[in-house]
């Protein structure tokens, strides 16, 4: 309820380059808060109009450097949208770009609607009439598409999941509103403890939906699996086993995979993008050093990491260093390759590793199952997963507003203020499951309470 026209005062954010393969990715922020939001996420930026600056993007929690990015500031009205625009270019890995957008949203930006940058450019007079007329049709079709998508969602699994939560929130709001608007009638003012419990229950019911986004995204976009290991442990052979094709150059000479090779494979319908990396070792060869650097980068950005070790040799110092890294990574799995050869590796060195042989195919089926399970723990519930980043952002925001409301309630703030947070949460759920109007709330009140004298 209470939604006006989409506001031009929000600061919006989106990834501006096609997601996926590119080496670089650009995230664009537009709106009056563009700079202050970027300042919160990036180390303080020495802003200067139209000058490229190099800054660090750090983890908001532990301060660890996540990426080294370039930012450019285009002050209003000399920008694409005629608003303040900040462009951030970083490495193109989708997982990084998504995380950057998420950080910016937490700092106050809103995910842009499809076509919104162009719409703003138009409404702010940046486009001439001819361009504007062409773009009008584009906006119409995009808006139609949105409407159609929304309509589909309303009958889909997501709406079925969100609908009951939305209704529960409406009822909670109605109880509080009845306590305000009909306080003089025989309507019991809802007790704070009961309301707090109801709010908490709502947040908990939202949680599984929110976490399903990770699964949903996997189903939708797939995820990446990087194979890492010392040179010649058989990464490329394993890669090809998983692909069941001869994609990577495989020789017995160490260091032939000089760059990151990528190929997508479908494991039980889940798209998995395999990244075969150069072997990790100290190297004097320039071209190989470059490959190794990229291997480390791929490892950092991949959704899943498969550490490959050679069962036919004792663990090398490089293996130990890699193990130390991998054991600290929750997304890492270990395999012990070359089980077809005589075993030389120390007994009990890698108890958690899965034994495979890329040559004989032993253990490969188990490996595929393991990867698929790590990617998607509960494939069976896929129908109602959240697959779209906007939906996920709505759920996150709803949850955040509900938590805020709980805080306000606990702080003893009047119900009409707590309700601001609850209405904000309801707006987010409305975006997934159909609009609530003030009449819907009154409907609940009149159906629930005998009000009126």
């Amino acid at each position, binding site marked *: 309820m*209470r*939604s*006006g*026209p*989409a*506001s*031009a*005062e929000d600061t919006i954010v989106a990834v501006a380059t096609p997601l996926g393969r590119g080496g670089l990715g650009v995230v664009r922020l537009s709106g009056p808060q563009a700079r202050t939001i970027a300042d919160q996420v990036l180390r303080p930026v020495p802003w200067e109009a139209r000058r490229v600056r190099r800054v660090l993007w750090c983890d908001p929690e532990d301060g660890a450097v996540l990426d080294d990015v370039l930012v450019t500031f285009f002050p209003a009205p000399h920008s694409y949208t005629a608003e303040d625009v900040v462009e951030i270019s970083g490495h193109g890995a989708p997982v990084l770009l998504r995380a950057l957008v998420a950080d910016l949203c937490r700092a106050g930006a809103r995910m842009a609607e499809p076509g919104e940058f162009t*719409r703003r450019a*138009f*409404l702010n*007079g940046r486009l001439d*009439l001819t361009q*504007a*007329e062409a773009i*009008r*049709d584009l*906006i*119409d*079709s995009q*808006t*139609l598409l*949105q*409407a159609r998508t929304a309509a589909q969602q309303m009958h889909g699994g997501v709406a079925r999941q969100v609908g009951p939560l939305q209704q529960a929130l409406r009822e909670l709001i109605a109880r509080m*509103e009845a306590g*305000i*608007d*009909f*306080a*003089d*009638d*025989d309507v019991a003012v809802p007790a704070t403890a009961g309301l707090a419990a109801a709010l908490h229950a709502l947040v908990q019911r939202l949680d599984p939906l929110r976490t399903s986004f990770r699964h949903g995204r996997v189903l939708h976009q797939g995820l990446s699996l990087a194979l890492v290991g010392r040179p010649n442990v058989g990464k490329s052979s394993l890669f090809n086993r998983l692909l069941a094709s001869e994609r990577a150059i495989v020789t017995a000479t160490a260091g032939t995979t000089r760059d990151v090779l990528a190929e997508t494979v479908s494991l039980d319908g889940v798209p998995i993008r395999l990244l075969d990396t150069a072997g990790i070792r100290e190297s004097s060869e320039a071209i190989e050093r470059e490959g190794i650097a990229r291997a480390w980068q791929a490892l950092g950005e991949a959704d899943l990491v498969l550490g490959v070790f050679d069962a036919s040799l004792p663990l090398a110092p490089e293996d130990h260093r890699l193990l130390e890294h991998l054991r600290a990574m929750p997304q890492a799995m270990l395999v012990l390759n070359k089980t077809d050869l005589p075993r030389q590796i120390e007994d009990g060195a890698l108890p958690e590793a899965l034994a495979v042989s890329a040559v004989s195919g032993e253990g490969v089926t188990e490996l595929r199952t393991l990867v698929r399970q790590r990617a998607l723990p509960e494939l069976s519930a896929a129908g109602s997963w959240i697959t779209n980043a906007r939906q996920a952002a709505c759920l996150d925001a709803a949850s955040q507003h509900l938590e805020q409301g709980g805080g306000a309630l606990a*702080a*003893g*703030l*009047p*119900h*009409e*203020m707590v309700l*601001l947070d609850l209405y904000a949460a309801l707006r987010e759920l409305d975006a997934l499951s159909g*609009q609530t*109007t*003030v*009449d819907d*709330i*009154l409907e609940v009140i*009149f159906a629930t309470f*005998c*009000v*009126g*004298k």
Partner: protein
Amino acid sequence: MQSSERYDVVVIGGGHAGCEAAMAAARLGLRTALFSLNLDLIAQMSCNPAIGGIAKGHIVREVDALGGVMGLVTDATGIQFRLLNSSRGPAVWSPRAQADKKLYRQHMRQVLEGEPNLRIRQAEVVDLVVEPQPAAAGEAPRMVTGIKLRDGGVVSASAVVITTGTFLNGLIHVGETTYPAGRSGEPAAHLLGEALKLLGFACGRLKTGTPPRLDGRTIDWSRFEEQPGDSEPTPFSFQTRRITRPQISCHIAYTNDATHAAIRDNLGRSPLYSGQISGVGPRYCPSLEDKVVKFPEKERHQIFLEPEGLDTHEVYVNGMSTSMPVDVQAAVIASIPGLERAAMLRPGYAIEYDFVQPTELRPTLETKQIAGLFLAGQINGTSGYEEAACQGLMGGINAALRVKQEPPLVLSRTEAYTGILVDDLIARGADEPYRMFTSRAEFRLHLRIDNADSRLMPHGRRIGLVGAAVWQAYEAKQERLAVLERFLREHRPDPASAAGAALYAKAGTLADRPTAAQLLKRPEFTIADLRPWLDAQLPGLLAVQTELDPAGWEQKTVETRIKFEGYLAQQQRQMEQVRKAEGHAIPAHFDYAAIPGLSTEVRQKLQRVRPQTLGQAAHIPGVTSAAVTILHVQLELQRRQAAAGRVALLDAPSGSLAADGPAANVIAVPTHPRPGA
């Protein structure tokens, strides 16, 4: 036609809307006449003897701030004042007062008679004089030029405000009995009702009801819980410093199993349940039979026994609205311990009446079809004295401004409940009697009773309804508020002083020396805690405030501004967005059919309501935000095309509604605005 008299503004109906409309027009300097069927019943409280209540009390404050009279008359005739929701936050505190019904009528009559530009006349108006008017953009094709009376007389007028309440084709139901009436004991306005339909207005039928009245001497008062008024009554008007009239008490009663059985056993005789009544009644004010049927699990329903006045024994049984036959009403009353012997002075009844769909109206309350004709109050599908009064005031103001050829006054949803009420009505129409609730307000924290003056008095002053003395008092108050707020924000209580030490003791440990405002933001502090410190710091200001404002409202206002400034600022930002949308005018003959991308359903809704601004469009149910975006883009495109000279037309000036007023400057409208068409 021969006119016997001529006025600038004629008001038809002397209820709560009519009184405000007539006073506003007259006080704005126009020759005004108010026509009523019975001058003795001007400002009659047809239902309960009370003004205000949650959200309604807000409206009365707004009427008062704009220069209306309801607040002053209530303050003068109130016999029990209560501030409702006082345990809640400041945004939903709302004053309510029982008024002496007879005193209220008499006082209002005196107010009307004291206004030199106003004539009051007893006569039945049966029709309007309507003439075609030359085509002008934004103007209706017809205009009203006067009224026709039952005796054949014609009165000419430049503007007419109709405020006929439930009188249009009113039909009363008491059990199986029905008879035409405007209210109990008064004739309906049948001819005027038919005339409005013939003029082409979309009409509907609504229903409302009222409870029986009892003789207080036959009630055993000892059986009921007493509900006294507040010890410090909260007045409605900015001009009232203190209520001095002695307060009376009301009493609270409850229905029981026997009451409910009496209702259930006789449902077949209820006009509501036998199908005799077709009009739609309000869900928030259900009849007792509705309560019993719809909430069978509820063991008892609350009833208030409210005296109708100081020199009468008549008691209003609030909560027992019913249209059951008289013998059933008697049984229902007798079933309540303490009312066994109660004598019924008048039975309750239901009334059905015609209303005009308010989608027929512009935001000024002028009809879209007939220029100069304004509708206000229950005729627009609302319910309640306060809802009627604020419409009467706005209708009267805009009728006067039209005659004076001045820009109209349209209140935004962001500044007044009155603005919300009008916007809701014209965008959505009425499908049950419309009552105000605070939950209808998007920006509830800003629409408070304590700031109604700062929200609206500047409007009242600008148009000329707020006099110099009141304005001076207003400005002095604003200055005091600013001084107090600034002082609290800038000064830090000194822990070495006695008053400061007390504050520190209350706060527990304080790391640094906070300002008084910072202390006030802590949940455990109220402005009252700061009083001893303030008394020492600002003795002059506090003394003035104590004298002018004994209840301490000014300090509460400052407390609210500081304590909730985060929430207020958040709403302020959203309000700016709504104001922008409200300022985006849509030309009167905008061609929705020519916009690609709108669904048929949305297009039909827009064509039916014809919103005047993007903000209104956004409030039409079923108009999605995607559709509003498309509209926005299209409007902008047309503006550009116009500016580029590709279409010889002008759009209404952005941010102004004046294009539809008398000073219309819309030159032409596009019939097919798409390029190349």
